[in-house]
């Protein structure tokens, strides 16, 4: 028999997990891309709550901060700024649907087969860490010792991402309207940038 605490714990788990699954489904099935992005945000928030429930508060908070706060908001802006033609998006659904259904069916069958069987065969499922450990501290220690090499390589990938993105998008075409910060900074205040013109008061229609 489960204790009341365990029942609440399980109920919360199924609440968050169910909401995440539903949000994921709605994200794919909804027609408006803005709603899709918002449902993805909902799915992220629910997964973050699941993580917090498992004792990984730091990861949960980071997920909300980074994915919900930054990535998805940026994504929403992009979706809103692009003029997406829904008709062309929906074109060819019937053409590709059979193949998609076959692939989806295969993957679902594989997962069900593997999970249903004897809970995955070899090895153990990872246990949640003892609650006495501060998981933020542990993450930091792990990243800067055991995974330092991988961490540095990931940093190199980020540098590469910036270089590649700038190399591919930054271009100086004569027609573009852009600021030249250097030129702006060089302007001196005493140079007469504004010319004050005295206008004589006169009657309407009269040349000044």
């Amino acid at each position: 028999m489960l204790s009341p605490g365990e029942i609440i714990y399980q109920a919360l788990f199924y609440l968050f997990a169910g909401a995440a699954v539903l949000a994921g489904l709605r994200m794919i099935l909804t027609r408006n891309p803005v709603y899709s992005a918002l449902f993805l945000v909902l799915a992220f928030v629910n997964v973050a709550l699941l993580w917090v429930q498992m004792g990984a508060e730091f990861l949960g908070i980071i997920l909300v901060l980074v994915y919900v706060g930054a990535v998805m908001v940026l994504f929403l802006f992009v979706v809103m700024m692009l003029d997406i033609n829904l008709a062309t998006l929906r074109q060819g659904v019937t053409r590709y649907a059979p193949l998609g259904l076959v692939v989806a069916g295969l993957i679902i069958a594989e997962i069900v087969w593997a999970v249903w069987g004897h809970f995955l065969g070899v090895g153990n499922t990872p246990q949640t860490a003892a609650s006495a450990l501060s998981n933020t501290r542990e993450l930091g220690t792990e990243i800067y010792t055991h995974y330092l090499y991988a961490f540095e390589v990931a940093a190199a990938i980020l540098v590469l991402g910036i270089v590649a993105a700038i190399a591919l998008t930054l271009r100086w075409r004569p027609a573009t309207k852009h600021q030249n910060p250097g030129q702006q900074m060089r302007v001196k205040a005493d140079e007469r940038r504004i010319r004050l013109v005295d206008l004589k008061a006169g009657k309407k229609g009269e040349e000044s």
Partner: protein
Amino acid sequence: MGLSATDYIAALPEIVLLGAICVLLVAAVFLRETRDAVLHYGSLLTIAVMAIITGFLLRDHQMIAWHGNFIQDGMGDVLLLFCYAITGAVLVYSRPYLKERGLLSGEFYVLMLMALLGAMVLIQAYSMLVLYLGVELLAISMYALVALSRDDGTASEAAMKFFVLGAISAGALLFGMSWIYGLSGTLNIGVLSAQLVGSSGTSIGLWVGLGFVILAMAFELGAVPFHMWLPDVYEGAPSSMVAFIGSVPKIAAFAFFMRLLVEGLGPLHDIWMWLLTAMAVGSLTIGAIVAIAQPNIKRMLAYSTINHAGFILLGILAGNALGYRAAMFYTLAYVIMFVGAFGVIILMSRSGFEADMLDDFKGLNERSPWYAFVMLMMMLSMAGIPPFIGFFAKLEVIRAVLDVNMTWLAVYAVIMAVIAAFYYLRIVKLMYFDHAEDKQPAIKAPADLRLLLSVNGLAVLGLGLFPGGLLALCGIVFGI
């Protein structure tokens, strides 16, 4: 808990390279007239320094560092040295070509060196996490290199296809790795292998993971069923980028197979052998037959790469030291031939003209007997005709397959090699027995390019006449 000096010394080439990339990146912003020369010779100097460091670190036993994320062993060191040499050669080949097209920017050098860093990380990775990061570092640099000529529609299209397929394969790789991790509870290659030996029987989940991981590897190597990107990328991308994309990443892909499949999932050899056999048969067939119909030499060489990928897989699927030695020898022989062939294509191109159609090679012998001869050596070597290196590479691979009693596969590979020989020999025929349709100007190129291309051509001949040294080197690293 912490890291010791040996960790840093083992990864010194990577550290030097990353430092040099940062310096060159900043230098590219501030230098004006001297920029191209500083970046070019700075990159070459960095590569030379790394080669010296790797030479000093060379050892025949393996050392695992960085808490099991990094491995330094003989195979890795030899592959690294080849990566340095090939990258250096590509830099020398591409300079005049890119200058004429206005693509010789600071980003080009940064992206090339980043790709080299990705290949190095992949070659020396000893955990699935680092393997994945190496794949990404290499792949993202390559996408950007292909897309670098932005005003070219075909290049952008090629980059887009490359990127989408690459993203799918990276997803498959992560998915497969997560299954393997979930079932074994470890990311480390050595621990994974030990666990698989210890466990009795294999679960279905492990097969799922294995299948997805192998799909991603097929993408890296350019083997069927993930070969579709090769022809489009080769055709669309600037020739000098292709010279890189077709060579160094293939060395890294070979290391990827060796690290994850052989060292990590080696106990599952009975299962993955059949997957690799199917991939090899598909690659050999498509590479040999579809290439015949290509009027574009870059597309033709793309299918040739697929064909060679099939041969490399033959060596790996044999599953013993003899097979691995043959596959490594084949990989190294292939990159030398490939870079040489693209060197000639780059040499023949000039401003506003890409020598990428087969007809452009008509009568090359009349215009430039020596470079026609270099191309002849590359083509005969790729076709597997003695005394060139390609012959011994094919011979070793087929010997390894016969050694594990897969005679039918060996016979099939030979038949496909004979079919493939047709399109290599067609180039020879065009160069020597046909006449150019219109008057082409004489070939002009800087001295360093000419010299290096000649050395490259003679290497194919020299290593073919005396294959013992390289073969022995490939043997030592696998303990034979």
